[in-house]
């Protein structure tokens, strides 16, 4: 075993032992649920009953309808270990991270398949082609006057062409749906971008170069407008491709890049703020929900 492996084994071993000791002592990570009976009657009057479990605080565990939930407790432990697994990438590639990565790619790709099937294929394709069939099992709430929309055969045909790739010959047919959607994207985006990002932004930049407020000249607002206009024009100058950045154009382009850098600096900081909040929320999950080290929301008072 090389030194790296030894270090990892020791770290894992110590960590596991510490966790086991703490878990045995405090019951950390335990999740409690409140059982709620759900009664429902179908349109034919048949009665159905099942139990729904809502989250409960650990401090309520003495109450009669509150009980320890094994799947949710296990879930918190799994979530915590997956969190640590992802964090372990900070120390470099390691077996725990590889395992986490394999699990998360596998499950999230599978999740995408489920979402695609239940939220797109069933309602948007099957529901349009055969409404009675879909209403009979997957979407009883679908309006009863929903008619078959034959136009939905077009996307069905496009899907079949795309999947024809899997056939042993004629895979080129799958280029047709690709061509259809790339052409579509080009046409759609050409118009929408020109509208929202060109025309509207030009309109937003039009400002009076001398601001009069209540009949008096307002030097601050004037200065601000001039600065905004200069900044926009200089940044546009930076983006010119057919003019070499030299002379007057070079100076304008340099001002433009300065504006860009200030923009990036501000945007950098705002984003950093968000990331740090995320990290704080993540650590709070580990410290509060899992390790029971802190209790900012008073969920375990008196335990």
């Amino acid at each position, binding site marked *: 075993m090389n030194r790296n492996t030894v270090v990892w084994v020791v770290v894992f071993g110590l960590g596991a032992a510490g966790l086991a000791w703490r878990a045995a002592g405090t019951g950390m990570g335990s999740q409690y649920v409140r059982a709620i009976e759900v009664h429902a009657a179908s349109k034919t009057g048949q009665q159905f009953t099942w139990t729904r479990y809502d989250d409960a605080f650990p401090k309520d565990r003495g109450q009669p309808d509150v009980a320890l939930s094994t799947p949710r407790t296990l879930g918190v432990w799994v979530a915590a270990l997956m969190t640590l697994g992802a964090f372990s990438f900070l120390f470099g590639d390691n077996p725990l991270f590889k395992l986490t990565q394999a699990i998360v790619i596998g499950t999230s790709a*599978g999740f995408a398949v489920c979402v695609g099937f239940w939220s797109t294929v069933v309602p948007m394709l099957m529901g349009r082609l055969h409404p009675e069939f879909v209403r009979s099992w997957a979407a009883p709430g679908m309006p009863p006057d929903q008619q078959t929309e034959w136009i939905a055969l077009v996307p069905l045909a496009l899907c079949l062409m795309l999947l024809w790739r899997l056939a042993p010959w004629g895979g080129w047919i799958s280029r047709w749906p690709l061509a259809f959607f790339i052409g579509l994207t080009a046409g759609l985006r050409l118009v929408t971008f020109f509208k929202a990002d060109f025309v509207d932004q030009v309109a937003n930049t039009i400002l009076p170069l001398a601001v009069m407020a209540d009949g008096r000249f307002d030097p601050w607002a004037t200065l601000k407008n001039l600065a905004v206009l200069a900044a926009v024009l200089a940044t546009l100058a930076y983006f010119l491709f057919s003019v070499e950045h030299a002379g007057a154009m070079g100076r304008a382009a340099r001002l433009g890049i300065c504006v860009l850098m200030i923009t990036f600096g501000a945007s950098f900081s705002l984003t950093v703020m968000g990331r740090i909040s995320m990290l704080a929320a993540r650590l709070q999950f580990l410290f509060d929900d899992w390790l029971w080290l802190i209790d900012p929301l008073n969920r375990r008072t008196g335990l």
Partner: protein
Amino acid sequence: MQRAAPLMIAVTTGFVMILAYFVPAMNDWGDMATNWFNILAAAALVLGGGNLLKMNLQQIAARSAGWGYAAVMLVSFLATVGLGLAKVGVHPPVNFPDAPWAGDYIQEGSALGWIYEYLINPVTATMFSMLAFFVASAAFRAFRAKNLEAGLLLGTAVIVLLGRTYAGVFLTGWLPESLGWLRFNRLTELIMDVCTTPGTRAITIGIALGVVASSLKILLGMDRPYLGSDEA
């Protein structure tokens, strides 16, 4: 034919979509097409998922390095697909209790809901939050005031970082009202108004023209990323 037909399809659809914007009767074609796109993207998961399966199976069969992880990935994928498509643990909706297949596929308490809440979600949120670490390392390593531009970037970053916490008030709160605009929190707002907004605006105008030109190149057949070679 193999290359001419798709080219015709792309060019025609593109021009029709442009025209549709100006013809009231065709205005909702864009929405309809977006709808179709979602269906195609869902169907394409068969190809993507199939490819994922194939690659992992190959790796396992060849016992190449890390095949164990490939097996884990394969099992997680298949298990998620199976549990999710079968709606394991999903209760019917309260108003249709006799329709067991009608419940929300990602309901709390269902198998897919558990996978989402305790496997996918924590890792996603963790990966998101790890950016705080990478940002710190980039700040130490890459943010060098080598020239005026870089200096501006990090100067702005520092002012905004401080201006958005109590540290800004602590450091510059003593400034008299006549110099009030120099206080970090006010300076932050000034930077936003005079630089960030126009800077973003100019970038946006450029992007719009870039998109127009890129789209035109596709509609003229100058760029054909969807066309393979003739030997297919």
